[in-house]
């Protein structure tokens, strides 16, 4: 299998989708001539032409709204928003238009639309270019939410998202674009709604997504030196949530950590903890733990941004602390 970066894997997914289906087109700022600010759409303009690779003005509401309209008449747009932080400017089109069309039409209208959005901190970009806003989307019924952590998943999930008949919010972490790994050749789809156990373990379950998966794998490796075996679940899709896989894992490990880069309050970690407590309370040997950013905007100054990105370093301690908690319930 060839090795490639996540940006290259996403580029390949675009090419395959656009070669296979003339209804698929790409739209966004600087995606054509410039090849995309992350190079994800590099070369598409040459291969598919200006009609299907649409460089737009800086008009996010028009980008999303025109994609909704094109989808309603039978196209399958893939739009790019360079920083998810900008969705405030097109939020109505996302949550009131794209997300609602199927429902308000009694199932008669479809908006098959992929919204690719770059997220994440770590580059000193500050408050308007660094956020992880997935919970804004998960709180809106009608949008699927996908957050790959590896290039192979990025390619397969993007192809699945293009095939999907509903709007898909597709989050790409900026620091993962250059992450290199093996990627299968040709067409394949990674099903939306299926999580993946990236590392098996018996002692506790870490549920995570996007860049936090890489933090969890490092922490699990270090914990293994002390004989603690972590199971790392890469969620890949937040909506629909693969609740069964999480339940099954927690049923075996009896301990849960949820780790995400987004800030804490009303973060998606709260949703996962709630569901596990509701479904698997009797299996838990200790209270579930959330390892998240603090409830602050993402600061520009690098030492301060490191504080925002605290979960990366807090995770190993959390693993040790949680496994040190003895089961109270089982002693009774």
């Amino acid at each position, binding site marked *: 299998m060839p090795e490639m970066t996540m940006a290259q894997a996403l580029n390949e997914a675009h090419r395959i989708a656009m070669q296979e289906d*003339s*209804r698929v*087109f790409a739209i966004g700022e600087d995606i054509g001539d410039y090849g995309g600010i992350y190079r994800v759409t590099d070369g598409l303009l040459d291969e598919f032409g200006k*009609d*299907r690779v*649409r460089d*737009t*003005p800086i*008009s996010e*509401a*028009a980008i*999303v*709204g*025109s*994609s*909704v*309209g*094109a*989808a*309603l*008449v*039978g*196209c399958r747009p893939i739009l790019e928003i360079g920083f998810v932080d900008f969705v405030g*400017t097109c939020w*109505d*089109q996302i949550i*009131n*238009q794209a997300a*609602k*069309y*199927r*429902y*308000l*039409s*009694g*199932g*008669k*209208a*479809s908006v098959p639309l992929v919204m690719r959005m770059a997220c994440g901190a770590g580059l000193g970009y500050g408050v308007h270019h660094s956020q992880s806003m997935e919970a804004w989307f998960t709180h809106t*019924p*009608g949008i*699927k939410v996908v957050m790959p952590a590896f290039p192979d998943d990025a390619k397969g999930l993007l192809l699945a998202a293009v095939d*999907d*008949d*509903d709007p898909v919010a597709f989050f790409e972490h900026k620091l993962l674009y250059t992450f290199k790994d093996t990627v299968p050749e040709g067409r394949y789809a990674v099903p939306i*709604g299926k999580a993946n156990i990236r590392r098996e373990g018996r002692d506790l379950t870490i549920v995570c997504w996007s860049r936090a998966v890489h933090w969890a794998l490092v922490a699990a490796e270090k914990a293994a030196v002390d004989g603690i075996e972590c199971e790392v679940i890469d969620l890949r899709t937040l909506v*629909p949530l693969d609740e069964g896989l999480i339940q099954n894992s927690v049923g075996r490990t009896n301990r849960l950590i949820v780790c995400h880069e987004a800030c804490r309050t009303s973060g998606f970690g709260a949703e996962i903890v709630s569901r596990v407590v509701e479904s698997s309370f009797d299996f838990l040997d200790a209270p579930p733990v959330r390892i998240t950013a603090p409830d602050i905007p993402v600061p520009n100054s690098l030492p301060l941004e490191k504080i925002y990105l605290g979960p990366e370093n807090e995770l190993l301690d959390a693993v040790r602390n949680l496994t040190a908690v003895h089961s109270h319930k089982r002693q009774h």
Partner: protein
Amino acid sequence: MASNKNEEFESGGGVTNGLTEADLLDMLEKMHLLRSFDERVSERCKRGEIPGLIHLGMGEEAVAVGVSAAIKPNDKMTSTHRAHGHFLAKGGDPKAFMAELYGKQTGCCRGKGGSMHLVDLDCGFLGANGVVGAGLPIAVGAALGQRILGEDFVTVCFFGDGANNQGTFHESLNLATVWNLPVVFVCENNEYGISQSIHAQQKVPHVSDRAASYLLPARIVDGNDVLDVYTAVSEAVAAARSGRGPTLLECKTYRTAGHYEGDDQSYRPKEEVDEWKAKDPIRRLERQLMQEGVLTDDALDEIKARVWKVVEEATEHAINSQYPSADDATNHVFAIAR
């Protein structure tokens, strides 16, 4: 217009617009249909049978009918919160319309959309919208889709004067012109955004003044003259079909009803409303057609009787239809039930 049966209407030096007598009578009947439906909806709102926020288009019928007469069944249309007339004029089924307002399972959206969220893709009606200005980029997208799919349709985008101060208006006009897309922007300028006069909300006196910023061809239309609307839209649609890009038409009209059912209308003088009622677009066409000898009192009575029957049957259908089943509350969030 579809009818070819009659000779082209020859008025005594008046505007013929390439329309036959049958076309003109059909337009008159449609305007009556829209008015009668709004009157019925208003009555049933007051009775408490139709719930929710209802925005009537009384006084604005010439715009909806003039536009729809100038486009084909496969052309697309986006609409606003004041959508009843657009939906019916575009060819939306009257029974499915009324049932939708009643929240019934036989409604065009299975009762889940309602007055502000009517959709009927089969007749090219891409959607009413509860958010002012939200339909504009969607219309531009439909036109973009036409370009990408290589299909043969134009898109008409209705919006109100209130929308011209929304960002989506400006983004959409810019995108449509920069990509030369086949879309016709039709402003129903009814003078008020809820309680505020347009002149209190913007410095430029006309919505069409905005078009200059985008080098977008625009003109002001008498929105109470269905023939002026028809002519202007026909030209704009011909331009769009032949690759000459978008046009903006500002139809000057007035809503003689309140903003919504229940609006006390304390923000405008009664004399102003009466002045506009005297310019009623339906009476105007009736007078014109009677003068031309196209319409007789008997023919008008027949039109009203046919319209009454449609409204009556639609209302009966809505009342007699079932509400959606409880399952429908959770259906249709996603394509496949999870």
